[in-house]
């Protein structure tokens, strides 16, 4: 989690200064905007586990995000179950969906663009299903009853919401860092770098990949549940739409896939850019996605390791002996 160079330290400091400054700005617009960005950052961190460390680029993280959101919403709205339990159930549902998609895709040895297409197909099928069944509220979606309180996990005060989200993002990043430097993380990176060599070294690559999808699915499910608890309303287009899947992958790619800070920094940067462009160009709808596409193409062309990779080359610190770490 520690920066490896002056450049990265500056990048991380900028992000932290921005996040801290919201406590002093008292601007509901910026607060609301950043709350959204933090929820997206969680799904970006989810994508980073499989796409960044594992090299399995998904184009359908909405499948797990939406499943988390719907699982929690259905339990609360249709069955009147407590929000905390529904919260946990949403995470579990996201993990289960991730494991299921992974188990199927990897059983048939899907890789690269085939894997991406299958995840996209799953998200689309789920979107259509969610818009046609009664239990998911059909086309009109599901609305949580407004009832602020700790037991319902609804908070009127945006500063409280913001703080909770910051804590959750920090936790997910800490988990990411821990995973990265664990046996599982090393195995996942080995699978990304060279699957045959990984198999030869005793790694059950199928299990590692499915496990990665489950963990990633849990994070994505968490992001979906957070969206539900913050905005109290979901429908199939919002949580299963491809916008979610695109935002999940674009942040890590811009910020630096396979790094701990990259997904957050990329997501914040992109959202700030999109928001800025919106104000400059008077809310032309869909403009942010055009802008994202341009930035993504530039990043893929010129920044193969994202902003963290670029910053990593500026003022490198002396590398410490790994044994002492």
């Amino acid at each position, binding site marked *: 989690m520690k920066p490896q160079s002056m450049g990265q330290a500056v990048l991380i400091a900028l992000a932290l200064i921005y996040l801290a400054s919201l406590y002093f700005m008292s601007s509901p617009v910026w607060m609301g905007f950043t709350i959204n960005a933090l929820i997206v950052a969680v799904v970006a961190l989810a994508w980073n586990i499989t796409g960044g460390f594992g090299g399995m680029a998904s184009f359908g993280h909405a499948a797990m995000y939406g499943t988390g959101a719907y699982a929690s919403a259905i339990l609360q709205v249709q069955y009147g179950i407590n929000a905390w339990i529904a919260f946990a159930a949403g995470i579990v549902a996201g993990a289960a969906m991730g494991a299921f998609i992974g188990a199927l895709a990897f059983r048939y040895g899907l890789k690269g663009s085939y894997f991406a297409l299958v995840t996209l197909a799953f998200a689309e099928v789920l979107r259509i299903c969610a818009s046609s069944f009664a239990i998911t509220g059909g086309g009109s979606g599901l609305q949580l009853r407004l009832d602020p309180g700790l037991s319902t996990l609804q908070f009127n005060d945006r500063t409280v919401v913001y703080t909770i989200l910051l804590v959750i993002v920090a936790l997910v990043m800490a988990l990411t860092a821990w995973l990265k*430097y*664990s*046996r599982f993380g*090393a*195995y996942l*990176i*080995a699978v*990304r*770098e*060279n699957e*045959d*060599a*990984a*198999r*030869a*070294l*005793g*790694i*059950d*690559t199928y299990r590692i990949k499915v496990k990665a999808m489950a963990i990633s699915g849990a994070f994505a499910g968490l992001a979906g549940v957070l969206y539900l608890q913050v905005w109290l309303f979901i429908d199939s287009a919002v949580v299963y739409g491809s916008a979610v899947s695109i935002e999940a992958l674009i942040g890590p790619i811009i910020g630096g896939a396979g790094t701990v800070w990259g997904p957050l920094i990329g997501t914040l940067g992109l959202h700030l850019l999109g928001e800025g462009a919106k104000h400059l160009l008077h809310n032309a709808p869909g403009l942010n996605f055009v802008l994202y596409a341009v930035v993504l193409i530039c990043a893929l062309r010129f920044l193969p390791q994202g902003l963290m990779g670029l910053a990593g080359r500026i003022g490198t610190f002396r*590398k410490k*002996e*790994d*044994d002492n770490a």
Partner: protein
Amino acid sequence: MLEVRNLSKSFGGLKAVSDASLDVPEGGIVGLLGPNGAGKTTCFTMIAGFTKPNEGTVRFMGQDITGLPPHRICAMGMIRTFQIVQPFAGLTVQENIAVGAYLHHHDRAEAMAVARQVGKRLGMGAMLDRPASSLTIAGRKRLELARALATGAKLLLLDEVMAGLIPSEVSEIVGIIRQIRDEGHTFLMIEHVMQAVMSLAETAYVLNHGKMIAHGTPRELVQDPGVVEAYLGHGAAARLQEGNHA
């Protein structure tokens, strides 16, 4: 330690390996020789579980392991290396070796310590923090061996670890392999470098067109007319004989 019986494998119409058998005794260094395309690597992929044989059985330490996946076989103590070296390019040398060490050392600090120790033993102490992608071919071959050793495997299948090395590098690796064997490891090695085979292997098998055509000590094999023909072409043995008499 390893008993391979009547292995066969075809790719489409091509019989890459047919009816090949071999034995590797514990603590031995056994060579597997043969001209290009003879089916040596294919034998390794079958023994190590990367492809299923059409026919035949593989027994390792008394257990039938035919058709088991590579990770199970590796956990039992047998590992293969690759002819075309396969480093994890984005990782450092030490991290590469640690991936092997993680098999039996689940803790990162422990795995990294084992990796350091194995790396130093193979003379890679100065390169541990370098990215694996920066290694020369000799370095990569060594890394391949180091990673395999770090898994704690007892039987190592080495696929041409000396190909592409200059003679001084070859004799270094030969020394290292002999030392590792003396510490209790067993080797089955595919090798084209005759100097290495002659000085390391106690016995060797020769494969040609997928068939085992000879088995013996390296010294016996170089005098075997069938082996000479396989390498140098039909009639070569007879011509050599004439040459010797003249």
